[in-house]
């Protein structure tokens, strides 16, 4: 792999940048692999990367029906955090945050991780009590978190209006939380995986599965049939559709989650500020854009665009908290196709079809989970049993009743 380094940059620049190699190969699709990963988003590419990197499983294909990172991986608000409530969730998401902390070095790709901290706001005494309980739970899970007084919040997020329509009674922070560059994470994993021998095939849609005697033997794709002993479904919003092709029905509802950015301005906000009760969160990208997100639109949608009511509610909430932002032009607005589960925890691990694995149900919170999602799924596929960190997120929990309800703790309730 052509390493990215200051020396290489300088050397290439002196030679007119004529000999940079493509970041990932465009291979000819083979007729069979050991593992097929369906879905070329962050999770799918990370799964392929860790399969090759940590388990020596390199005869892998990632099949992406569009372009890699064109789904939710390219539509999120780039937040990485691990402030969850339940021990099983905390352990998973903090593993992911720790992987993010070393990711740039691991992938030799600048993922632009900026651990600028996250602040969750309380707008009443009751909410402050609720945040104290949540903060304590985070600390008991051995993850960093501390309460903040309003003045401390004002010092960190100076454009905030503490005395507006939604007064700020205080909040908590996770200082290790932050943002990274979503495209870089996708491209970094793609480049890493491709360099280790993984075939990344774009414009290849899976139309069906070859399942005999309850066991998967391959897939039927728009580019022809491909055999594999192990297949991973990692397609987020289209998971119900893909699972149905395998004869499975899963507890997923697909909805539109909107996000937007303003015109770029000079640095003004150096934290990710989240308000659970008014349903919005804000940060500033490294390009200077104010990045805004909120709750999902209320009804099932595959449209990848939301409607005006939710947009208005989200922007309205942000402007009450940050009145000066009303002067900014909204530059771009879009939506992802999020796969919501009944308990807002993911669906990971084995399926009733032998050799067929699933990784979905990330809902509005999949970006922060990309490294750990890939790492644990790679382990699960290579070894054959769920990685300990994802044992609680199996499909069977909906039968046993062992739901992991992170709805309140996920930050923005679905």
């Amino acid at each position, binding site marked *: 792999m052509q390493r990215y380094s200051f020396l290489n940059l300088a050397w290439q620049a002196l030679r007119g940048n004529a000999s940079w190699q493509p970041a990932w190969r465009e291979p000819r699709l083979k007729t069979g692999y050991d593992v097929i990963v369906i879905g070329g988003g962050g999770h799918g590419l990370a799964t392929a990367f860790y399969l090759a990197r940590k388990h020596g499983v390199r005869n892998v294909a990632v099949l992406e029906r569009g372009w890699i990172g064109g789904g939710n991986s390219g539509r999120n608000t780039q937040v990485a955090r691990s402030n969850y409530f339940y021990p099983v969730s905390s352990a998973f998401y903090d593993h992911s945050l720790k992987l993010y902390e070393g990711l740039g070095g691991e992938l030799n790709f600048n993922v632009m991780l900026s651990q600028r901290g996250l602040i969750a706001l309380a707008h009443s005494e009751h909410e402050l009590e609720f945040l104290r309980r949540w903060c304590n739970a985070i600390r008991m899970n051995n993850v960093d978190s501390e309460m903040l007084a309003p003045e401390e919040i004002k010092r960190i997020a100076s454009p905030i209006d503490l005395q507006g329509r939604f007064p700020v009674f205080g909040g908590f922070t996770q200082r290790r939380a932050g943002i990274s560059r979503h495209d870089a994470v996708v491209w970094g994993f793609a480049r890493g995986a491709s360099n280790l021998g993984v075939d990344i095939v774009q414009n290849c849609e899976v139309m069906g599965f070859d399942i005999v005697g309850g066991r998967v033997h391959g897939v039927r794709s728009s580019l022809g049939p491909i055999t594999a002993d192990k297949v991973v479904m990692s397609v987020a919003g289209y998971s119900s559709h893909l699972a149905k092709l395998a004869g499975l*029905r899963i507890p997923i509802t697909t909805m539109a989650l909107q996000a937007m950015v303003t015109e770029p301005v000079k640095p003004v906000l150096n934290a990710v500020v989240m308000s659970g009760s008014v349903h919005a969160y804000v940060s500033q990208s490294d390009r200077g854009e104010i990045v805004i997100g909120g709750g999902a639109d209320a009804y099932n949608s595959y449209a990848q665009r939301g*409607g005006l009511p939710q947009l208005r509610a989200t922007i309205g909430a942000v402007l009450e908290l940050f009145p000066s932002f009303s002067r900014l032009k909204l530059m771009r607005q879009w939506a992802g196709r999020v796969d919501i589960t009944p308990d807002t925890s993911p669906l990971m691990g084995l399926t009733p079809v032998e050799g067929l694995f699933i990784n979905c149900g990330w809902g509005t919170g999949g970006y922060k989970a990309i490294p750990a999602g890939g790492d644990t799924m790679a382990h699960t596929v290579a070894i054959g049993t769920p990685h300990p960190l994802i044992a609680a997120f199996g499909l069977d929990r909906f039968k046993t009743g062992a739901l992991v309800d992170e709805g309140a703790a996920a930050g923005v309730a679905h």
Partner: protein
Amino acid sequence: MLRISCPYCGVRDETEFHFGGPSHISRPPETVDDSTWSEYLFVRDNPAGLHFERWLHAYGCGRWFNMARDTLTHEIRAIYAMGDPRPDL
């Protein structure tokens, strides 16, 4: 903004309504096994395309009705009374 034709009040903005999830899910008797019960509670078709769903005119007449809507385009294909069967579309 979805413009929804409430069968009782006429066309109103979606902000007057509350989405009530998919229609035509019948509650099974309580004697079924855990698998069947959990399917009823949690498993959904979640189609990319025509979807039959329930809506409540929460800030209007307060009544429920059914809707057939395309989840890819958001086009409302039919509105029919609560309790009526799925229309043939």
